[in-house]
């Protein structure tokens, strides 16, 4: 039971490629735009464009494809199950029936719905994974703080919220190691996590959860003391040693993204949606 193996979220793969050198703000904006486009897409050609785009980015940034996809592995069974779920349950009045057996009726509308939603899940996952794999945590923090800065004017504590996100991302890996240790310790005491029915399995989670939460809260108290003793005050009057600068690469990347979005939006509006 290797829990930490498939975690790609919050991991940074250092590199020297163009994608790595882009200003974090450019990358965050591009990723957000991509996610926004993904939410509007309802046809296969548009997804094809996104696939092309993401493949190009992965290729340029030199991330091993196998590594980028391994975070998806634990989700696969659920995704496949949900695809069948959509296939049999979703239907619209003018849908053609592909086949029907007993109480199950598969329609083409259900199949398209299943396909499109699964594709969306896949690409959402891809876009965020690529962003965190190619951007360092410091870069992400600085970029988000700088992008959200205008919201401070209306009284949102943006810097603090970004700090919260960063702590969350950082601690995923730390707590994962902790969880691994707890699970192994309980296994050494003879707990068989993969045996038993639903209730027995659930019961076995309690001796894992309690130490996990207690340890997390102990760490939280330590971190609070550490931050307070260094007089952390959030965003007020903080300056940076390294400031962000946009360069020519960012301009080119922005232009490419602009053209790409235009094409995708054109596809969205011209091609008949599948659902």
């Amino acid at each position, binding site marked *: 039971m290797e*829990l930490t193996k*498939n*975690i790609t*979220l919050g991991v940074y793969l250092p590199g020297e490629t163009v994608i790595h050198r882009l200003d974090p703000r450019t990358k965050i904006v591009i990723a957000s735009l991509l*996610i926004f486009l*993904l*939410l509007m897409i309802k046809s296969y050609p548009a997804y094809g464009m996104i696939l092309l785009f993401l493949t190009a980015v992965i290729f340029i940034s030199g991330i091993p494809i196998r590594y980028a996809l391994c975070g998806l592995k*634990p*989700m696969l*069974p*659920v*995704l496949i*199950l*949900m695809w069948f779920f*959509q296939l049999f*349950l*979703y239907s619209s009045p003018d849908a053609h029936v592909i086949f029907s057996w007993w109480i199950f009726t598969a329609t083409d509308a259900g199949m398209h719905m*299943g396909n499109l*939603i*699964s594709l*969306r*899940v896949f690409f*959402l*996952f891809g876009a*965020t994974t690529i962003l965190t794999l190619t951007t360092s945590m410091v870069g992400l923090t600085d970029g988000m703080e700088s992008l959200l800065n205008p919201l401070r004017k209306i*009284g*949102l*504590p943006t810097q*603090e919220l970004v700090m*919260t*996100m960063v*702590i*969350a*991302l*950082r*601690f*995923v890996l730390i*707590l*994962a190691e902790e*969880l691994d240790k707890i699970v192994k310790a309980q296994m050494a005491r003879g707990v068989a996590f993969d045996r038993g029915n*639903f209730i027995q*399995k*659930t019961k076995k*989670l*309690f001796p894992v*959860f*309690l130490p*996990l*939460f*207690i340890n*997390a*809260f*102990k*760490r*939280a*108290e330590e*971190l*609070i003391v550490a*931050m307070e003793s260094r007089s952390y005050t*959030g965003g007020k009057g903080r300056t940076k040693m390294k400031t962000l600068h946009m360069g020519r690469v960012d301009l080119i990347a922005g232009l490419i993204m602009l053209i790409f979005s235009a094409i995708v939006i054109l596809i969205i509006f011209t091609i008949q949606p599948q659902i």
Partner: protein
Amino acid sequence: MNLSVRKIVISGILGAISILLGVTRLGFIPVPTPAGHATIMHIPVILGGVLEGPVVGLITGAIFGLFSFLQPGAPFFADPLVSVLPRLFIGVVSYLVYYATRKINNVLACILAGAFGSVTNTVLVLGMATVRGYLPSEVSISIGVLHGVPELIVAAILTVILVKGIQRIRPVEEKN
């Protein structure tokens, strides 16, 4: 609006646990239904609401929601209206229930907070999924019953155990 260091750190770490339960699949309890899993990923959010108040509950809920939107476990979560929006209410509801009932009995308040937080998650998420047309209403209701009930029981028990355990180790507990 100002966020204290305590609120920042606790919401961050609870958010991390929520994400961790998601990426390791530990937060999914195998239930014998078509949809496969009941979730306990919302427990950190309930704890945030109960232990630190509505703001922490809200932020933790937002982190949980954002995560389940960006790394979706089920297809209909790939829509922020289904994945993010309902999650904002979990912590707030738990907080309100806990503070309304804790004068009576701390344990009872924890049980109710856990149960109501869990119901908020189930009802709002499935309700949103139905409204947005991802699931037919009969299916939502059956998922709601088949998943919601075990989720509710597990959430109630875990909330009591965890709140009791954490309140014991915390230095500034019950000051205000």
